């Protein structure tokens, strides 16, 4: 066991922290208020290498490990979870899926610009009637010889508008149920694709979430990832890593709220002393710190397993369900510690609380994580 980070991991953590505390913070409230996509920030994060940080340098990625990724996503999420989900989806769903399962031509054509951040990717799995239950896909991709003809609707798609490259999960053989599901690379400007309106969300308001409609969209067969029928396995494998990203985001929301609450408690006075000296507040902070530490360790464990090439699906499910739950608890307590100030936007913690809620829902709800964990226990 070794709990020390390498100098390089610390440098990446600091780089993410510097960018978040120096740049993201400047307009985060404004972007949240008006649901403005952080275009300039994504560009800057791409230049710093955060958009494809785990992809091999051979494909213009950063060549960093999953531990570094956890640290970076946490730091970004302390300030702006909308920005960090853009980073997370691009890294752990889109880039990872392409690098791990795409063929060489696909990597050259699609992975390179995604890893360098010149383009953004989106992962299209959820449907109006199939969210966490990924087996019942209604979007179909009909074999037409050298292309597939895609029809259907995808819901809750992060980066739907800003992305140029979609990874689409669709049904190619309905009779085979989930074994008939296939993963396709779809260019967003393909004819027949239309977007629903920008979802007016409770939190993560500056990430652009839309539904995506496919109406006779032609997708060349060379854009299929793996074989026909591989799509479900593909999606599940990719989501295992995605959970590390979202879990780290939840840790960042919690630790960002803890940092703010601690600073506030050391400054704010009540009954003649700073409120941090009141046990009611001090114990809250202690409880929050323990939860954050636990959640972070779960993330790091999952990342470490991934870096070691060991199975990490259960570890990442544990990290996600726990981190998301404590993110909700810790951010709520941070608002409480701030009192009235916590309820106004200027103090940031109310936003962190709104955003924390989503980590319990997206990329597999907490309930789905528990299904994954319990099935493994009782198998």
């Amino acid at each position, binding site marked *: 066991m070794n709990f020390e980070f390498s*100098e*390089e991991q*610390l*440098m990446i953590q*600091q*780089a993410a922290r510097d960018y978040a505390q120096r740049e993201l913070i400047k307009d985060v409230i404004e972007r949240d208020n008006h649901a403005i996509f952080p275009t300039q920030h994504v560009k800057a994060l791409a230049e710093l290498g955060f958009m494809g*940080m785990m992809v091999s*340098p051979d494909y213009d990625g*950063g*060549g960093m490990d999953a531990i570094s990724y956890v640290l970076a996503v946490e730091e970004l999420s302390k300030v702006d979870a909308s920005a960090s989900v853009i980073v997370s989806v691009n890294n752990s769903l889109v880039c990872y899926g392409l690098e791990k399962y795409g063929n060489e031509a696909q990597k050259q054509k699609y992975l390179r610009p995604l890893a360098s951040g010149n383009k953004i990717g989106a992962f299209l799995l959820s449907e109006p009637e199939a969210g966490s239950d990924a087996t019942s896909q209604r979007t179909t991709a009909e074999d037409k010889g050298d292309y597939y003809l895609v029809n259907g609707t995808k819901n809750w798609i992060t980066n739907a508008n800003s992305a140029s490259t979609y990874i689409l999960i669709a049904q190619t053989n309905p009779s085979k149920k989930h074994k008939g599901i296939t993963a396709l690379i779809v260019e967003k400007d393909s004819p027949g694709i239309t977007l629903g309106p920008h979802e007016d969300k409770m939190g993560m308001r500056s990430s652009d979430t839309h539904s995506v409609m496919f109406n006779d969209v032609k997708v060349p067969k060379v854009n299929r990832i793996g074989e026909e029928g591989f799509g479900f396995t593909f999606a599940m494998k990719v989501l295992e890593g995605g959970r590390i990203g979202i879990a780290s985001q939840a840790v960042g929301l919690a630790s960002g709220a803890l940092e703010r609450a601690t600073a506030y408690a050391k400054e704010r006075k009540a009954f003649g002393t700073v409120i941090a000296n009141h046990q009611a507040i001090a114990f809250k902070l202690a409880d929050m710190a323990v939860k954050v530490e636990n959640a972070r360790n779960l993330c790091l464990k999952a990342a470490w397993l991934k870096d070691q090439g060991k199975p990490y699906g259960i570890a990442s499910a544990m990290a996600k369900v726990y981190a998301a739950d404590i993110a909700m608890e810790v951010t709520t307590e941070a608002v409480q510690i701030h009192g009235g100030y916590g309820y106004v936007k200027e103090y940031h913690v109310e936003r962190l609380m709104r955003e924390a809620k989503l980590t319990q829902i997206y990329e597999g709800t907490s309930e789905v994580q528990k299904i994954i964990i319990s099935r493994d226990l009782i198998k």
Partner: protein
Amino acid sequence: MKILVLIGNVPDTTTKIKFNADKTMFDATGVQWIINPWDELALTRAMELKETAGSGIETITVANVGHQETEATLRKALAIGADKAIRVDADAKDAFYVASQLALVSQGYDLIFAGVEASDYNGAAVGGMLAELLGIQSVSSVSGLQIDGGLVKITREIEGGSQALSVAAPVMAIVQKGIAKEPRIPAMRGIMMARSKPLEVVQPSETEIRMSFEAFDLPPAKAACKKFTEEQAKELIHALREEAKVL
């Protein structure tokens, strides 16, 4: 043209300053170390110059005096974009000692950057001393710098204004805020490349110690702030005259 940037390893600027029990030494427990802020700006400016087309800058070297723990700071400088690092393996004692050690490794550069001071002991001395030891020109309080052929064009702050001047290389530029807008954040690519960049370790030379700190004190605690209400604003101004006697 070859550039050298001197790098100091200092406590993060948000560090709460504490000393050991007998108050003879800074208590470094739990302290996060960073590149001295002005040195980081200097490095950023050096990078900007190098990236300017036709600048003719071949290499940027960074150097410090310190033990192995300070290498993290040098490697960050490499990640930001310096080409090579040199560490003189010694305790950074007083400014003269540090300047004398740096003099061993500072020959042959056209432009040397130093920060106006280190944010810990605020000596404001190493750059000037090194320039004197090397026998080269130095310009201090530098807030802007361009390279124009063999000439270095400098903007510096002087009492009451600023001044544009030119000086022939080699020159020591002792820089302050303004030299670069913000310190550069190392990119992933830079962090990766820093792995394979050279970091040379040089043995120190025998040098006398000319000053040291016997002890440290924290500034005396201030009396509590006298609070006035918004409506009593005028009374506060009167207190400044009658009580504090500063008006």
